[in-house]
């Protein structure tokens, strides 16, 4: 081939390399600045190449060990594996050669086709395999569903067809026993009793099997009726009391006087109660008590059945509701169990949108709890009732919760009105007409509570609250509650470090509940003798502390429980004290795992149990958190749980005192 031919060939090759070849071609200077690139490199890196991306090292991915151009050139003929950023987002590995040409450097990079092919084959194989497995899975799912349906059908048929002959055996043996009691020998009577008892047990088992097969076929047809639960349970207890009395077991019943209505299938919930009670009786010894309680917990009515039996071993609790579960615990009079009762009970409760669980302690006893949702319309009514509630006004509140109060408002009429209302609760508040005056007074006196107007002439209430928070540690500053006619939100008040927010016109009831709710959280600056001396509190420090603790609780609720049954109150307190630390720990875990749904669930649960016992600050803190979650204005989870623990500590101390009394 002549010179002309050689020249043409190199031109062709260069043109091909420049325009068509799937090969990266870059020309760079000694500093790596890109001088020229081919079309493939442009396609790989994108339009920024040579405009924004101008240096070779901006295209290569640097894992911290990129060699210098000098090093790369040293052994230019040996392929160097380097990673290239591409416009598609995924980096690609190329094998590069570096050649020195005049004062420039030519960079040529290509991919390993064999490697790509292996990857493609693996991906295709994996895809096919995954699709085949998906097919198998879908086939198995359908087969299992069909088999389950068949099983239920068979179970239902078998149980139904066996029921009639067994009923006849049971009835005739019953008849024979009653008719021949005086005529037959004791051994014969014993045989007849065995026939009757066995047929009775078989009938129970068949009924349970029928129930299970119906429920599992999705045929839990609930006939829901609005029901007054307190009297409904009372009626259910009648028959069970007869059974219990045979074993000399007492059934007691504790309840609120009135509870909101629930919508239930009465036959099915009676079945639930009968099952839980018959279990309690089955595992209880004579002269013990089975206690049934019903109370409101948040949006649910909660029913519990507590026995003083042997308790359930911890390792059996998780399988307790499984079908044909057998327990190592023996019944006290040899009563038999089908192993299906609790499975049915659980399915019925879940069918009512409720929950069921068990709390058991070996040697102490077992408590089954289940919940039923309160009718939405009743909940609404209750909320309206609560918001417009007329509380008993306590003219001696100042004796129970002694506080130094400052009222800050620039309207003399408003100051006079608030002072008058506080006076009706036994307080003698001081006043300030603007923020500056208020801050000076707070500096000079130990106020426990400040009612602060938002629209003040000099500094607005929000700024004043922030100032107080910045200059006083929380335990040494007064609690701040805004009284405002503006449309400032509760969240804004909380963010400014306030403890509450009231709207004008303020009602006496609102002032009273605010003092009860947040007055209990107030810690007096009693850590110095001076502070002690300056406090004009008529009670001793111990008495004072006791009052503080007890104001964590709504005395009306506590007194209500006391009037119904003090023993029940003690049990509620025990339950609360036992379960709340567990719940708080679960809450911490949920926060750690960022499981916001579980956090919300647990906070609601805690709010429910706190409300039940009248632990208002604790319940209020939970409500606040839920509301904040909804509005997205939450404080940090860490702060939330820390304060929660503080409030629980205070509540627990107050409850201990009540329990001791």
């Amino acid at each position, binding site marked *: 081939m002549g010179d002309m031919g050689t020249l043409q060939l190199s031109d062709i090759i260069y043109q091909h390399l420049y325009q068509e070849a799937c090969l990266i071609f870059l020309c760079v200077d000694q500093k790596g600045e890109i001088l020229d690139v081919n079309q493939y490199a442009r396609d790989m890196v994108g339009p920024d190449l040579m405009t924004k991306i101008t240096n070779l090292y901006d295209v290569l991915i640097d894992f911290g060990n990129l060699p210098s151009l000098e090093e790369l050139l040293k052994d230019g003929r040996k392929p160097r594996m380097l990673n290239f950023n591409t416009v598609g987002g995924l980096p690609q590995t190329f094998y590069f050669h570096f050649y020195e040409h005049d004062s420039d450097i030519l960079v040529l990079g290509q991919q390993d086709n064999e490697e790509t092919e292996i990857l493609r084959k693996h991906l295709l194989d994996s895809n096919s395999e995954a699709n085949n497995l998906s097919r198998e899975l*879908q086939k198995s799912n359908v087969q299992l569903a069909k088999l389950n349906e068949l099983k239920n059908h068979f179970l239902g048929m078998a149980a139904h067809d066996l029921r009639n002959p067994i009923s006849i055996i049971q009835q005739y043996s019953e008849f024979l026993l009653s008719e021949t009691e005086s005529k037959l020998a004791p051994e014969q009577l014993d045989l007849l009793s065995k026939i009757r008892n066995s047929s009775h047990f078989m009938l129970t088992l068949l009924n349970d099997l029928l129930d299970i097969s119906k429920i599992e076929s999705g045929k839990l047809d609930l006939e829901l009726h609005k029901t007054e639960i307190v009297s409904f349970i009372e009626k259910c207890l009648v028959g069970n009391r007869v059974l219990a009395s045979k074993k000399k077991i007492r059934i007691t019943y504790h309840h609120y006087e009135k509870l909101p209505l629930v919508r239930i299938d009465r036959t099915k919930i009676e079945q639930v109660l009968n099952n839980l009670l018959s279990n309690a009786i089955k595992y209880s010894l004579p002269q013990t008590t089975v206690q049934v309680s019903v109370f409101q917990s948040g949006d649910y009515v909660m029913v519990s059945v507590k026995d003083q039996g042997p308790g359930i071993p911890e390792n059996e609790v998780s399988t307790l509701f499984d079908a044909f579960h057998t327990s190592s615990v023996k019944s006290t009079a040899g009563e038999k169990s089908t192993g299906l009762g609790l499975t049915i009970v659980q399915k019925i409760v879940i069918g009512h949108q409720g929950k069921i669980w068990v709390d058991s302690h070996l040697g102490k006893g077992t408590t089954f709890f289940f919940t039923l949702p309160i009718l939405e319309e009743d909940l609404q009514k209750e909320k309206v009732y609560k918001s417009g509630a007329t509380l008993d006004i306590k003219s001696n509140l100042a004796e129970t919760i002694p506080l130094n109060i400052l009222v800050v408002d620039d309207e003399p009429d408003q100051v006079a009105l608030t002072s008058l209302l506080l006076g009706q609760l036994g307080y003698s508040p001081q006043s300030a007409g603007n923020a500056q005056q208020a801050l000076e007074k707070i500096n000079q006196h130990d106020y426990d509570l400040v009612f602060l107007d938002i629209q003040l002439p000099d500094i607005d209430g929000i700024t004043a609250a922030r100032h107080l928070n910045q200059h006083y540690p929380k335990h040494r500053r007064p609690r701040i509650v805004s009284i405002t006619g503006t449309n400032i939100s509760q969240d804004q008040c909380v963010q400014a470090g306030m403890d509450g927010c009231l709207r004008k016109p303020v009602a006496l009831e609102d002032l009273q509940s605010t003092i009860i709710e947040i007055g209990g959280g107030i810690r007096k600056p009693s850590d110095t003798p001076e502070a002690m001396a300056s406090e004009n509190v008529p009670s001793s420090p111990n008495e004072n502390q006791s009052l503080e603790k007890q104001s964590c609780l709504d005395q009306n609720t506590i007194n209500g429980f006391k009037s119904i049954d003090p023993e029940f109150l003690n049990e509620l307190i025990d339950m609360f004290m036992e379960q709340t630390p567990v719940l708080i720990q679960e809450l911490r875990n949920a926060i750690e795992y960022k499981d916001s749904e579980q956090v919300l669930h647990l906070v609601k649960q805690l709010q429910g149990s706190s409300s039940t016992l009248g632990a208002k600050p604790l319940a209020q803190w939970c409500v606040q958190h839920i509301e904040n979650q909804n509005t997205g204005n939450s404080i940090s989870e860490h702060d939330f749980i820390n304060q929660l623990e503080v409030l629980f500590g205070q509540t627990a101390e107050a409850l201990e005192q009540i329990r001791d009394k």
Partner: protein
Amino acid sequence: MIEKHYDDYISALLAGNRAKCTSIVKELIEQKVAVQDLYVNLFQTSMYEVGKLWESNQISVAVEHMATAITEGLLNLVYPLIFAADHVGKSAIVSCVPKEYHQIGAKMVADIFELNGWDGYFLGANTPENEMLQIIEEKKPDLLALSMSLYFSLRTMEQTLQAVQATFPQLDIIAGGQGFLWGGLDVLAKYPQVNYVDSIVKLEKLIRNG
């Protein structure tokens, strides 16, 4: 119904637009298009077209593989309909011969068995001979269906037929697949219990006639 969507579907399939293909198939399922129609007039027709485009060098093997992968994924959308059929107590094992990697046709055959109330066990691509024999022993099917997509697999097909015949002489076998378009029916003719099935329509006829 399928004709209306076919052009859009094949364009999306060749462009690798899985989402578009999925939405077309979902729509057809919602319109209650029969599964057989979907298999024959959408999946099979489009895959045959893809095959022809590859053979005529109009698309690369990479595009052909991509279209196959998308089609296999789309079959998952149809499974809830396929497996819901009442079963008649018969079963078929469907498999590709050893070294045969094109499995989609065979899988569709297994699905057609399911749709007609048979248990259609699908063993997948490149099933080793001893594994196939072992599963036949275990499942005791009424029928074995062997797929050959490439003519080059004819030799392996014959070896498989010999091995199956030696161990299970009574077992009925059907064979099919695009590979037979290039020949091989003379090989099948040597085995009296082997039937050649060239289409899904013929397969359904055979299943229904028991």
